[in-house]
């Protein structure tokens, strides 16, 4: 495992520190990705939870593409950051907790897509969403907020 991580850091994937401004650039992209992801989640979750009840659900669903795009930017920049110093990250308990929350958020997203998305698309304006959809929406907000906090704490736990 350690040999694999060391070879990762020596490959082109792990070259962030070798490039001038490489790491700050990755961090900036990571923050931009997280804002795009969170914005996409907020509009959909706000409708499902009844906070923005008059928002038409079907067109609001097109903001899932915003969330997915934000996740792709954050995940790609995150992989490069990880590969720049993998042994340091795998030894960091806050990083491991963050990855756990991301995996849970991924499962929650699958539950949303396969267990709630279809029925939500036919929700009338002002109508209350099903309770399983509300559970998913709360979970997504809680999990991603946790991911943001844990991500921000990584450098303080070493």
């Amino acid at each position, binding site marked *: 495992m350690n040999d694999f991580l060391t070879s990762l850091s020596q490959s082109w994937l792990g070259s962030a520190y070798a490039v001038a401004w490489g790491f700050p650039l990755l961090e900036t992209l990571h923050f931009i990705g997280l804002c795009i992801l969170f914005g996409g989640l*907020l509009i959909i979750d706000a409708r499902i939870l009844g*906070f923005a009840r*008059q928002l038409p659900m079907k*067109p609001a669903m097109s903001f899932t*593409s915003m969330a997915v795009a934000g996740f792709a930017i954050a995940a790609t920049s995150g992989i490069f950051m990880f590969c720049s110093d993998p042994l340091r990250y795998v030894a960091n308990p806050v990083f491991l907790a963050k990855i756990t929350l991301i995996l849970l958020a991924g499962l929650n997203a699958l539950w949303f897509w396969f267990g709630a998305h279809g029925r939500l698309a036919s929700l009338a304006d002002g109508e209350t969403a099903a309770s399983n959809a509300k559970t998913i929406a709360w979970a997504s907000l809680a999990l991603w907020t946790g991911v943001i906090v844990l991500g921000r704490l990584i450098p303080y736990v070493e």
Partner: protein
Amino acid sequence: MSFLASLEGSAIAVLIRETMWTYPGIISVHAIGMAIVVGIGLVFALRALGLGGRIPISSMDPLLKLAWIGVGLNVCSGLLLFIADARKFLTMPTFQIKLALLVAATIVFVMLVRRLEANRSGNDKALAMISLVLWLGAITAGRLTAYIK
């Protein structure tokens, strides 16, 4: 500068700098606030650019309230982070640029929402692009304050 120095010497600034989890805690709140404010800012910009085109702007009103809560969160957490190192921040070009971009981004955001509400869709796309660039620029300048002394 003596006012800034006295800010840094105040009991609350000392608490923020020297208590183990205070600074990371405030930074975490600042990151959540950023995600709310910029996230919703980008939602309105993308809506103006055509994403979710059939969504009436009036139905997005609750998101505006949420965005202002995020602004409040980040003005408070930002002030606390600022007074902990007031002299350092105020003389940093990246910090000055970040503040200028945030002021501009907020003004353009309010203009964009008003245009969308009035449904005068003429320049919405140009204004939305400006809004997008200002938000992303503010994040970039904010991140670089950690690197440029």
